[in-house]
């Protein structure tokens, strides 16, 4: 199986707080790898380790290796002794698209949300940007709804539409890997279902690592399932995935006081 993500002996601490403790994790180059765990188990931190976004949040210490396939086979993204320096941070983050729990559209027009990163990060020409806006909005099924109002503020969109726009924005940068941090947590059932459909489609083309707090969603989407607890990985299912009930009990087992929805 070809790997897109390989994390080995990886530990991470914010100051003195150890958040990830000797984590081993891998994700295949196709399909959705789902991370589940109760809050505080370190799943979001693990996700953010894959594009080194933790480093924007404060003083971070890391140990171990994280290797990603960013188009040229697996390569280290953290500096290692006796090895060439990894790609610049901005390039890593550009190649690892991320979508967050709350749709974080930039306070700009719909078109500018996609155009601004393309212009700044990829330095594309206006003509090409225009084409890509259309292409990516079509990809996430938002073109029909927004084609006539691309110049209006993105903040007027509904929650589901915003999250699609965020996905489109990430896709426009041509990522090698997609990271999704509870992408449907802030959406209503209807919007969540359609985003899930979209993710299944995208999972056939991109390696996706998705954090979920919802066992049923995890079952619906996962091609691989990883359970986290207290900064460690406690279960990993690659072939025979458990059903929602089992996931629920797994989560309870590790955290008796916590009830999962």
């Amino acid at each position, binding site marked *: 199986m070809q790997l897109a993500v390989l994390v080995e002996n990886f530990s991470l601490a914010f100051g003195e707080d150890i958040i990830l403790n000797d984590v081993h994790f891998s994700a295949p180059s196709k399909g959705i790898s789902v991370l589940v765990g109760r809050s505080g188990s370190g799943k979001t931190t693990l996700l953010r380790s894959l*594009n080194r*976004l933790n480093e*924007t*949040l404060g003083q971070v210490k890391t140990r171990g290796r994280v290797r990603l396939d960013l188009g040229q086979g697996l390569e280290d993204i953290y500096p290692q002794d006796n090895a060439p320096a990894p790609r610049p*941070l*901005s*390039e*890593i*983050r*550009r*190649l690892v698209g*991320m979508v*967050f729990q*709350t749709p*974080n559209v*930039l*306070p*700009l*027009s*719909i078109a*500018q949300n996609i155009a*601004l*990163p393309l212009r*700044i*990060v990829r330095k594309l020409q206006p003509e090409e940007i225009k084409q890509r806006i259309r292409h990516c909005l079509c990809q996430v099924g938002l073109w029909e709804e927004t084609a006539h109002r691309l*110049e*209006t*503020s*993105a*903040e*007027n969109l509904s929650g589901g539409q915003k999250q699609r726009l965020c996905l489109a*924005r*990430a896709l426009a*940068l041509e990522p090698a890997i997609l990271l999704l941090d509870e992408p449907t947590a802030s959406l209503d059932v209807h919007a969540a279902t359609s985003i899930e459909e979209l993710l299944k489609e995208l999972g056939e083309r991109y390696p996706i690592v998705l954090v979920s707090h919802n066992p049923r969603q995890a079952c619906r989407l996962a091609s691989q399932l990883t359970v986290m607890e207290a900064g460690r990985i406690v279960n990993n299912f690659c072939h025979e995935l458990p059903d929602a009930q089992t996931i629920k009990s797994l989560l309870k087992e590790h955290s008796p006081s916590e009830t999962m929805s």
Partner: protein
Amino acid sequence: MKSPLPWLLRLAPLLLVAVCAVLLIFLLQRGLGTFSLSLLFGDVPPLQAIFGQRPVWDGLWPACAGTLCLVLLTLTLAFLPGLGCGIYLAEYASPGKASFIGLAMDILAGTPSIVMGLFGFTLIVFLRQTFLPNANTSLLLSAGCLSLLVLPVIVSSSCEALRALPRDLRITAFALGMTKKTVISKILIPQASQGIAAGLILALARAAEDTAVIMLTGAVANAGLPAGLFDKFEALPFAIYYTAGEYQNTEELARGFGAALLLLLLSVLLVLTAHFLERRYLRQRQGFHAAGRAR
């Protein structure tokens, strides 16, 4: 017994409006009568006066032009250093450095304007005795001292505007692969522009009204239109101060009130222009529905 607090709270804004109204009515009553072209231009035809073809001796036009130049020059001098310092404080400085710089800013902000004027005056005396024997009090010196005076306002407003931005915005921008430099210049500063503009407007108003600095650093009663950076100039607040001190008859006093009203109008005009530019900028940037809600 019911607490009197809600009533007191309601009284406070009333007091504010009342004071403002009394001030305006008083100014209008005393100054409006003098409002005419001759208040501005004396007996010189307006167009010739505006373009400086004929000097104006007994009108306020040179003072208006002087104040306008002074304000614009002050903001030009103070804007970039102020914004730069604000960005450094909000984005780069460690807490220790930030509090040290904050202390320096507080001291600068607490400096009385007369002290700043004295500083400018002493500076010129020093320069005359050492490197520049021909240096003299001038428009540039006044603007320089005024920009020191308004610098803390611009620094703290831009710093606060940047700090107030949601953390998500930064994280989003970083996650899209932007470098720290582009995150600041393309995302954070445009987003904080309203706060930064508010600071500029405050600085503008402060620079327009200050008298103590300019009377020691270059403003005079009769200089005509501002001729250059190194020349003396007239300014409205100084004209008011001068008239109030030296008036010979009620007519001259009334002209002083006219000048006060004029200064008020000029400030309002500058502030409205600033608001207009800000609105246009936001509309262009955020897409047209957001701009309406922004205020």
